[in-house]
């Protein structure tokens, strides 16, 4: 035997989607398993394996060339980097290699292929001597048969019948029933014994399903009742006549045929703690055994009914007509005579194939974005911004790029406010259980396993009893209305209520939600029970305040702003929550941090003055509301200051909502400032709204450095902003821990958006409109499809697929040292999953990491628009915007807008 079945399954499991149940959505690199490869190789390899797109389509990228989003300079620069050139024409009188590539990228050429080309050539008659020579010189190719590792592929090729159409519906039903977390009224019998056992329990009984392909299944299952899954897999593969050497490939291909369900089985196997209600003892190998058993029966059935015709395999080598024709057309459009050396011309044309063009165009697309942002950062840093001496309050936000606009507006409106960015769990890694939660959940980055429990304890009573009765009743109606007798009574009795709710939800969504919410009553007053020792608290508080720089000069009020998002009609709701809390809501972390920092012993240990106060708060990014915690504990001297801070925050929320609404096509261009919050809130509560917010769709950049460098720079909600002061970090310890946390988290978000955008059908989960929640775990398209993983199109539709541009305020030497010491980070950066830039503002220098070294970035634009309010930048615009200096209170007008517009 080549390798034990278990190892083969383990190997295949790495290539399955790693998305767990939707309740705890954590962004991750869709191609995490390929991170060992350079990005460009990985997307191609994975694309072949999954049948997915590696880059945006050439048509889409070419549109960007036409619209000027990709400039000529970008094309020339990218080709110069990627294409080797000896400066000589490839054929006499023709272009050099680089000139050819630039021309090829600049013009979209729709070359007919396959039958349409054959037809065209037959119609065209004699195309002249050039064509004849090119055709004669064209390389001979043998058509390659598609790889067919699964018996199903062979059967399909030979008989034209797809056995998956027999097997998949049944397998989907079984997997759905086994993993179901509470949709079905009846749970699957015997599922506590594992998937294979439950399957045997159901299907080994006599009187089985009458499907013709399942004939004899019961007897086989009875015979195998004592076999383990590995033995069944080996038996099925042998019966399917798969050579042992190919077992690994066959297993992988079999699992990938329904990779969503296989992946969920795997997730239940390795992370049972993430199951929303109860984890069944799932094993991927059990699932594989069931799938292969069904495959075997289906294959036997199909082969028995439709004897194999034998697939027609073409072995004759024929000239590559498509290439020859493409070369012919290009020779004409470029006015080149390839006849002196047709082979060289063909080789050149063949070298610049569709995949390469897309790769180059995408590189040019990324380059334009990168240059725009780097130039903007550099230009802004050169603008003198007057330092504020009196700071009234400070606010520490999550690094999330959605908070960029809130921070900017806050600073714009309230010059005495100062903001910082730190990962939204604020160093408090905890298992948290809120007053209404039924079990605790970790609120910290997924790589950390929290050891502390924090519990929210009520100190006054809410309307718990009323709430409970109401919930019980609505549950009773929800379940009962689907049954026979109770359903009859409920539908008769509740028709009028149904009408009221229907009218409310369809026509007045915001009012309907408010009414429903009001019935729940007030949230009870609570406190957190924090089980940390003073030393631990000092460590947490000290680390955050030191890294951000708050400790150096704390303001009288320090707000900690955690964030999350609440929305209706959104199975992917938790994908909009805070990534730094592992897909949870960061309010409790902010609250716990504030409680720790307000502890007198902690203050004494850190030397914090007595007249400052920390307040935890929560920002709902979907409706732009703020919640403040433990306000009753605020000492009297700080109350007025806190009120001022709250007013400023409320004002900033309005502006941020206004800026965000410009992305929604439903919002008019001239949306009044006063209507912005209402518009955003309607999006959050509307059952008919598939775009509650655009989430991370605008992410593209991450800046690690002092806020003073970016304060007042319009970054269009596109940048994760991490506060870091190099001056206070003498031994790089702070920077190292920041990069280790920020790099993978931001790259995970960024790459998940990249892949879901580039191939919404394979990497993403497609349009939301037909989504159907199954088993409280995930979504299917309609009633029986694979479990769809990735992000829905409505979440990513406005995304720009560029790799994260990570700009760090540090010298190349320091970054190189950190990279060489940390293999994981080096792999992400070295393989090009992140674009890393070292920024040395003192020298006005930037270095882009490429091909293993930091290479200086040469600025192209030094002039950016200068405005006094953010609204002047975004007014009337829907698309992505370039950088601009927003200098509140500066005399205007300053430079020209026209030059800067091009940078977009």
């Amino acid at each position, binding site marked *: 035997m080549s390798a034990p079945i278990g190892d083969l399954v383990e190997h295949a499991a790495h290539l399955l989607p790693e998305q767990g149940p*939707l*309740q705890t959505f954590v962004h991750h690199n869709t191609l995490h398993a390929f991170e060992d490869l350079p990005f460009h190789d990985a997307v191609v390899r994975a694309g072949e394996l999954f049948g997915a797109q590696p880059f945006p389509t050439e048509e889409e990228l070419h549109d960007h060339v036409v619209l000027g989003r990709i400039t000529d300079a970008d094309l020339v620069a990218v080709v110069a980097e990627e294409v080797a050139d000896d400066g000589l024409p490839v054929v006499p009188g023709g272009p050099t290699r680089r000139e050819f590539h630039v021309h090829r990228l600049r013009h979209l050429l729709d070359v007919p292929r396959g039958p349409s080309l054959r037809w065209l050539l037959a119609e065209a008659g004699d195309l002249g001597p050039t064509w004849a020579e090119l055709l004669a010189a064209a390389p001979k190719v043998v058509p390659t048969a598609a790889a067919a590792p699964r018996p199903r592929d062979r059967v399909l090729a030979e008989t034209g019948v797809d056995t998956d159409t027999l097997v998949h519906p049944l397998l989907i*039903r*079984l997997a759905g*029933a086994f993993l179901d977390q*509470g*949709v*079905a*009224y*009846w*749970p*699957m*019998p*015997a599922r506590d014994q594992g998937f294979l056992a439950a399957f045997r329990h*159901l*299907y080994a*009984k006599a*009187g089985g*399903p*009458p499907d*013709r392909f399942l004939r004899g299944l019961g007897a086989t299952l009875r015979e195998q009742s004592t076999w383990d899954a590995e033995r069944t897999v080996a038996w099925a593969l042998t019966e399917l006549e798969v050579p042992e050497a190919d077992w690994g490939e066959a297993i992988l291909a079999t699992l990938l045929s329904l990779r969503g369900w296989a992946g969920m089985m795997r997730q239940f196997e390795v992370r049972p703690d993430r199951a929303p209600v109860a984890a069944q003892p799932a094993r991927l190998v059990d699932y594989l055994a069931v799938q292969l058993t069904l495959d075997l029966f289906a294959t036997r059935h199909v082969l028995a009914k439709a004897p194999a015709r034998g697939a027609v395999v073409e072995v004759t080598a024929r000239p590559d007509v498509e290439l020859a024709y493409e070369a012919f057309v290009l020779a004409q459009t470029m006015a080149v005579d390839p006849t002196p050396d047709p082979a060289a011309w063909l080789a050149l044309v063949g070298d610049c194939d569709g995949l390469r063009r897309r790769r180059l165009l995408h590189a040019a697309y990324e380059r334009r974005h990168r240059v725009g942002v780097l130039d903007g950062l550099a230009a802004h840093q050169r603008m003198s911004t007057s330092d504020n001496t009196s700071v009234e309050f400070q606010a520490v936000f999550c690094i999330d790029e959605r908070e960029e606009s809130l921070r900017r507006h806050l600073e714009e409106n309230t010059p005495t406010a100062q903001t910082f960015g730190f990962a939204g769990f604020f160093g408090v890694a905890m298992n948290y259980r809120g007053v*209404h*939660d*039924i079990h605790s959940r970790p609120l910290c980055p997924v790589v950390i396993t929290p050891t502390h429990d924090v519990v929210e304890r009520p100190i006054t009573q809410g309307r718990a009893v009323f709430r409970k009765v109401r919930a*019980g009743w*609505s*549950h009773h109606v*929800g379940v009962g*209305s*689907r*049954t*026979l007798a109770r*359903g*009859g009574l409920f*539908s*008769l009795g509740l*028709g009028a209520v*149904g009408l009221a*709710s*229907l*009218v409310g939800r*369809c026509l007045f969504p915001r009012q309907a939600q408010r009414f429903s919410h009001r019935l729940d009553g007030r949230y009870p007053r609570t406190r957190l029970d924090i089980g940390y020792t003073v030393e631990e608290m000092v460590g947490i508080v000290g680390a955050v305040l030191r890294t951000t720089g708050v400790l150096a000069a704390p303001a009288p009020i320090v707000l900690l702003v955690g964030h999350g998002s609440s929305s209706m009609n*959104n*199975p992917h709701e938790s994908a909009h929550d805070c990534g730094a809390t592992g897909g949870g809501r960061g309010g409790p972390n902010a609250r716990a941090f504030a409680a720790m920092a307000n502890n007198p012993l902690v203050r004494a240990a850190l030397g914090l003055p007595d007249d400052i106060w920390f307040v935890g708060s929560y920002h709902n990014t979907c409706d732009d509301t703020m919640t403040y915690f433990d306000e009753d504990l605020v000492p009297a001297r700080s109350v007025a200051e806190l009120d001022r801070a709250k007013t400023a925050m409320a004002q900033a929320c309005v502006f941020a909502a206004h800026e965000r609404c410009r992305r929604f096509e439903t919002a008019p261009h001239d949306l009044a400032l006063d209507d912005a919050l209402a518009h955003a809130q309607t999006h959050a509560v509307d*059952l*008919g*709204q598939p*775009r509650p917010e655009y989430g991370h769709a605008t992410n593209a950049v991450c800046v690690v450095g002092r806020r003073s460098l970016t304060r007042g720079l319009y970054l269009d909600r596109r940048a994760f902003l991490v506060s870091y002061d190099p001056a206070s970090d003498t031994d790089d310890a702070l920077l190292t821990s920041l990069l280790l946390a920020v790099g993978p988290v931001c790259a995970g978000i960024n790459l998940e958006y990249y892949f879901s955008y580039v191939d919404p059908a394979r990497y993403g989960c497609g349009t*939301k*409109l037909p989504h*159907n*929640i*199954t*088993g*409280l775990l995930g979504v*299917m*398209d*309609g*009633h029986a*499809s694979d479990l769809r993983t990735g992000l829905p199109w409505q979440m990513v539709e406005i995304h720009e697929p560029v790799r994260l541009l990570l700009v760090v305020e540090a010298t190349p030497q320091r970054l190189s040292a950190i990279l060489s010491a940390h293999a994981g980070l080096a792999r992400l950066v070295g393989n090009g999953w992140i674009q890393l830039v070292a920024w040395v503002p003192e020298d006005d220098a930037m270095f882009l990491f490429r091909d293993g070294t930091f290479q200086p970035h040469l600025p192209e634009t030094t002039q950016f628009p200068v405005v006094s309010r953010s609204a002047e930048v975004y007014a009337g615009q829907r698309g992505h915007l370039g950088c601009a200096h927003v200098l509140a209170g500066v005399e205007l007008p300053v430079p020209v807008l026209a030059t800067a517009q091009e940078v977009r």
Partner: protein
Amino acid sequence: MSALLIAALGVPLAAFLGLALAMWFGRVWTEGVVSGLVIGAAAISGLSGVALAVVCLVDGPGSAVLGTWFAGFPLRLTADWLSVPVVVLVGLLGCLIGAFSQRYLHRDPGYRRFYLLLALFVAAVQVVVLAGTLDLLVVGWELAGLASALLIAFFHHRPGPVAGGLRAFITYRISDIGLIGAAVVEHHGGSHTVVGLLLVWAVLGKSAQFPLGGWLPRAMEGPTPSSAICYGAISVSLGPYLLLRNGVDGPAVIAVGVVTALYATLVGRAQTDIKSSLAYASMTQIAVVLVEVGLGWDVLALVHLIAHALLRSGQILRSPSLLHDHHHLEQSLGGPIPGTGRHFERILPARARTWLYRFALERGYVDAFLVDRVVGGLVRTVNRAAVAEERWVDRQAVTR
């Protein structure tokens, strides 16, 4: 009254024709114009229904003859206690779902097509509801079937929805034999029993009753709002309405209702996705309505039909928020959500439970029997005949 009757079905029809012409000639109207037109048309249709109700209350039920299709086939519309409430319901739901879909389908490439089909569906259903003769009803019935099959196949670039739409379309065609047969028999003065039985045949497909209900869960491939209006509410309700309209009751109707109600409630209990679960819930309640119709409890049946339509379409619209609601429910209850299906474990022995569960999970094996055995058998026989014929032709050619 004639004006109101014509408005109730003519306005949605005009909206459909207007949209269809605009799309035919390549005019691209904005989303707002397209949806506004359809919502407005549905609203006018519903309001005409309200006005008809007033007229009916004052003057009593009435009808209007719009002319004669051809000899013996008058175009008659009827407003009475049965049709008027359903006209109002259809107008109201068309208007509400139209408003809902403005946000739901925003930016979808098929936005205009969706509203075109929605307008056709509303107009067609109003024809069914107001038709005073079986012949006119057939017209609406066919158009409604076409519109709903096309809505199921809305995402036609994937094979699943197209297969689902085709399945519904074929089922409709098969059951249409009953309806058209009934119209023919009626014209030839056939017995009421035969007409009744043929109408029950028509209802089996349209209302997804046993054993022709397999298309209903597959119909959930379309966008959520169209699932809500067609399969939660109106489309499946047309069956009982047809029987009420033609005064069909009796043991056959009761039998269909009882068998389907038991079947659908069993099968529905094992469904693990929310839309299939709701589809079988709809099937169950429509079956209960059929029982009521069969017993001659017409008023109860009508009230049940309308109330069910309102409740169920709301539930389907809410189904994408299931995870949110589940979380909220857990929090409000302050504990895990109580398990279901314990009667099942208490009452039945383990062996029977396994059998019953498998029966439910496999959706009563109906597909295996109908598709694999009946339809498949037919196809295989035809294929065999074709092969035999080919062989015969070849032999003839050789001998000649």
